[in-house]
């Protein structure tokens, strides 16, 4: 037996190692092996030099099965340890023959990575590269870009990004958003008096964005246009319902305020009525008792008309909301048709339009009932009252007595951008809303009739800019104000919003570095924030939001540091703002000075622990920073060496990329240090004379 095996030569390990390179055959040739009824891990393989280039000479189905050798980390299946093989048709594989020269028992040992230069067409003939997608393994590229390469480059297997779908499209055709929700603004629940208006404007903003995406989809074959329009109509309907629902609160507040305002007027009217009837009756009868009875009877006669007015109250909100639905839809359709870019004045005008609708709804609902109480109304006008008191009636302002609940439980910021973080609220521009509402009312010239006639069909809604088809044209003629809502005309504005804490007054200027392009197209990353003012009153670090007018930049994340030391002169001030993520594509501010930026100081974000005297801190320009470590091994201070400023200052551009400090230590861990930048002080001239004031 032993001798027999010794004589055997075509046996692996006894007669050389015959290796080969081949191609995994198409799906059809793999039969049930890939459809859940296979045996072992096998693939049909066409092997170069052994199998012909033509299927006429050898059908794919007649190729030999090659066993697939698994890596030791893959698991054989024993003990439930297993990993599926990841071979696709068209893969170029490498292996050996178990039976040596007989070449009937191939084994696949590995696979060559696919490159961009290899084709990904459908299968045509043996050894010609073809796609690994099959009838059962498909990718239309909608969620994850189609890609059949495995290379060490940035284009291989691109993943969806954490950006909005709109931004993904702008970045490149192979970019996808990780979720359609990313970039959407969420307005949190709040009892804040202005929350309803914020929610309404946020809904309009989100609709404009969604419509922008859908309108982009209209560049599709005509047979698909209907589906897109259907989506637009559904969006319009959903937003109408949502906004009409949100408007309930406004209607409720205005109704409540109206009745509370009307009651004293009616009361005064009743008293005046009594006086009048009393005087008339007394003059006629000379009887005080008769006159009293007549006056009281006159007042009592008003009970039913007053009751009719009162009975409208419980139904007012529902009646008004149901009556303004079409008008809200009309306003939204105007925005949908004309507005390309949501700007705050569009939101203000929309709320103004909504307010006019509510005023119109209330006056129309109550109008017929007011005839019954006209005798005691005096000069009270529903429309006039609502319009003059609109600010208070919408609960935009809310005077609180000491017993009222203070609204200090609102979130530091009430808006959140999905996938990004807290958003600074623009605030509710009450004056602008009221001005737009009143201006629109004047243009319609008639309160009840005019407002109620504000239907799209009548065309009178055109008083609002967003109903003007030219609102997105730079040279638009304005009716209520210059509320241009096309693409931004200038993109160089960059803002650092500091918000969401108790303090105020902190101001920072973003520093753009890693600049690509020139002139108007110059853009880069945020490499620092120059803190202009620390403000005051911050009892927790505020949020930092870096935005540009064109919404081009993305990904810059910064955080604030405040001073908690009560004995410090900068107590409760913002002392630093450091960059967590530099982002990209931010326009270069026009006011970014010509002076280059140089290191100012090191911000110890986290002192870490267990550092020793061997700790060395350097930047990417190899400058060494002196480190001060306390007895507990924490980094308590890091100084900027003169050499760092000097070395970098000699560079005409100063620091033009995000500075990074590297900590080398055998023992320490956890410290995080950031380098704050400042504009290099301007040159003060040559030293002419040194005066020694001591001696």
């Amino acid at each position, binding site marked *: 037996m032993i001798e027999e095996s010794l004589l055997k030569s075509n046996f692996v390990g006894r007669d050389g190692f015959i290796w080969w390179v081949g191609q995994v055959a198409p799906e059809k040739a793999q039969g049930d092996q890939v459809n859940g009824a296979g045996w072992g891990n096998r693939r049909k393989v066409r092997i170069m030099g052994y199998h012909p280039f033509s299927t006429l000479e050898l059908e794919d189905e007649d190729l030999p099965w090659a066993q697939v050798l698994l890596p030791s980390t893959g698991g054989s299946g024993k003990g439930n340890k297993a990993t599926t093989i990841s071979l696709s048709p068209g893969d170029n594989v490498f292996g050996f023959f178990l039976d040596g020269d007989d070449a009937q028992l191939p084994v696949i040992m590995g696979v060559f990575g696919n490159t961009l230069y290899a084709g990904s067409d459908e299968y045509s003939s043996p050894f010609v590269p073809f796609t690994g997608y099959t009838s059962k393994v498909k990718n239309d590229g909608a969620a994850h870009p189609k890609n059949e390469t495995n290379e060490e480059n940035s284009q291989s297997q691109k993943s969806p990004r954490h950006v909005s779908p709109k931004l993904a499209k702008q970045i490149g055709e192979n970019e996808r958003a990780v979720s*359609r929700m990313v970039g959407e603004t969420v307005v949190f*629940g709040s009892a804040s008096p202005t929350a309803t208006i914020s929610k309404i404007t946020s809904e309009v903003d989100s609709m404009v964005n969604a419509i922008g995406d859908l309108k982009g989809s209209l560049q599709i074959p005509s047979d698909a246009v209907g589906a897109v329009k259907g989506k637009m109509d559904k969006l319009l309907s959903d937003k109408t319902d949502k906004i009409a629902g949100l408007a309930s609160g406004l209607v409720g507040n205005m109704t409540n305020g109206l009745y509370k305002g009307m009651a004293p007027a009616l009361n005064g009217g009743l008293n005046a009525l009594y006086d009048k009837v009393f005087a008339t009756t007394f003059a006629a009868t000379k009887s005080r008792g008769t006159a009293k009875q007549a006056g009281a009877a006159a007042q009592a006669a008003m*009970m039913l008309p007053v009751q009719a007015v009162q009975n409208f109250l419980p139904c007012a909100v529902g009646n008004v909301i149901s009556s303004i639905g079409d008008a809200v839809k009309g306003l939204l359709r105007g925005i949908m048709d004309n507005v390309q870019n949501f700007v705050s004045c569009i939101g203000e005008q929309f709320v103004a339009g909504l307010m006019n609708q509510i005023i119109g709804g209330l006056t129309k609902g109550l109008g017929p009932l007011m005839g019954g109480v006209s005798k005691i109304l005096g000069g009270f006008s529903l429309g006039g009252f609502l319009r003059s008191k609109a600010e208070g009636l919408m609960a935009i302002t809310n005077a609180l007595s000491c017993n009222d609940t*203070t609204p200090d439980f609102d979130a*530091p910021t009430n808006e959140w951008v999905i996938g990004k973080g807290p958003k600074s609220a623009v605030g509710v521009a009450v004056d602008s809303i009221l001005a737009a509402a009143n201006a629109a009312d004047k243009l319609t010239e008639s309160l009840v009739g005019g407002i109620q006639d504000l239907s799209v069909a009548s065309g009178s809604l055109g008083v609002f800019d967003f109903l003007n088809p030219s609102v997105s044209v730079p040279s638009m003629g304005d009716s209520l104000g210059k509320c241009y809502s096309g693409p931004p005309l200038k993109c160089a504005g960059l803002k650092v919003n500091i918000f969401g804490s108790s303090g105020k007054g902190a101001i920072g200027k973003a520093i753009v570095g*890693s600049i690509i392009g020139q002139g108007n197209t110059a853009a880069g990353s945020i490499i620092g924030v120059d803190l202009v003012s620390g403000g005051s009153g911050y009892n927790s670090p505020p949020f930092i939001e870096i935005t540009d007018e064109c919404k081009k930049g*993305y990904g810059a994340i910064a955080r604030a540091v405040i001073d908690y030391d009560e004995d410090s002169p900068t107590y409760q001030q913002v002392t630093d703002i450091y960059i967590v993520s530099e982002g990209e594509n931010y326009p270069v501010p026009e006011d970014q000075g010509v002076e280059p930026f140089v290191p100012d100081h090191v911000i110890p974000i986290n002192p870490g622990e267990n550092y020793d005297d061997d700790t060395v801190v350097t930047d990417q320009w190899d400058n060494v920073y002196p480190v001060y470590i306390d007895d507990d091994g924490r980094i308590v201070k890091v100084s900027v060496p003169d050499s760092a400023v000097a070395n970098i200052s000699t560079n005409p551009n100063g620091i033009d990329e995000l500075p990074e400090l590297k900590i080398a230590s055998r023992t320490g861990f956890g410290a995080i240090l950031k380098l704050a930048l400042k504009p290099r002080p301007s040159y003060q001239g040559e030293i002419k004379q040194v005066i020694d004031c001591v001696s």
Partner: protein
Amino acid sequence: MAERPASKQNWQQREYINFGPKFRIDMGNPQMGMNGTTTYDLLAVADDGNTSAVGMTDAGLYHIYNDQCIDIIGGEKADSGCCVNIVGRNGDITITAQSNGDVKITAKNITIDADKNITLDAGSDIKLKAGNRIDLESNIANCDALVGNLAPRDISFGGLVFSGTKIGLDAAQGLKTRGIV
């Protein structure tokens, strides 16, 4: 669009495992997102295009996105105690039904425990209904309503309108009967 130059993106750190077109793990992807670059992502897409993504960005935001519904179920084998625990160490916890949905909470007993204030703010109606009893307990309790049987006479609409008028007792009784004051 001006992406950062490749030399300023850390591709050396990126690693991925793609299990086909439906699922992948991506780690250290330096492509910029709205909250910085990607620390890791578990990305999935179903046959009908529904996607889910779970992961974290380098600026520290952990996210769970899902196109369809999300189930979070705990406690199948727990006998008692807390089986689903949501804790925000600092900052707010917010729940928002964004589009057209409601927020519903159901339990044997429900406790809302605020260190300071509780506000219920509804655009339209609030209804409190108890099978047995409703107790209000406070140092101060006010009702500011224009109509209804809780509306105090002196601040109700009818009360305000007819305050100080000369309508007789019988007529006033009529007002009350009619629910005007």
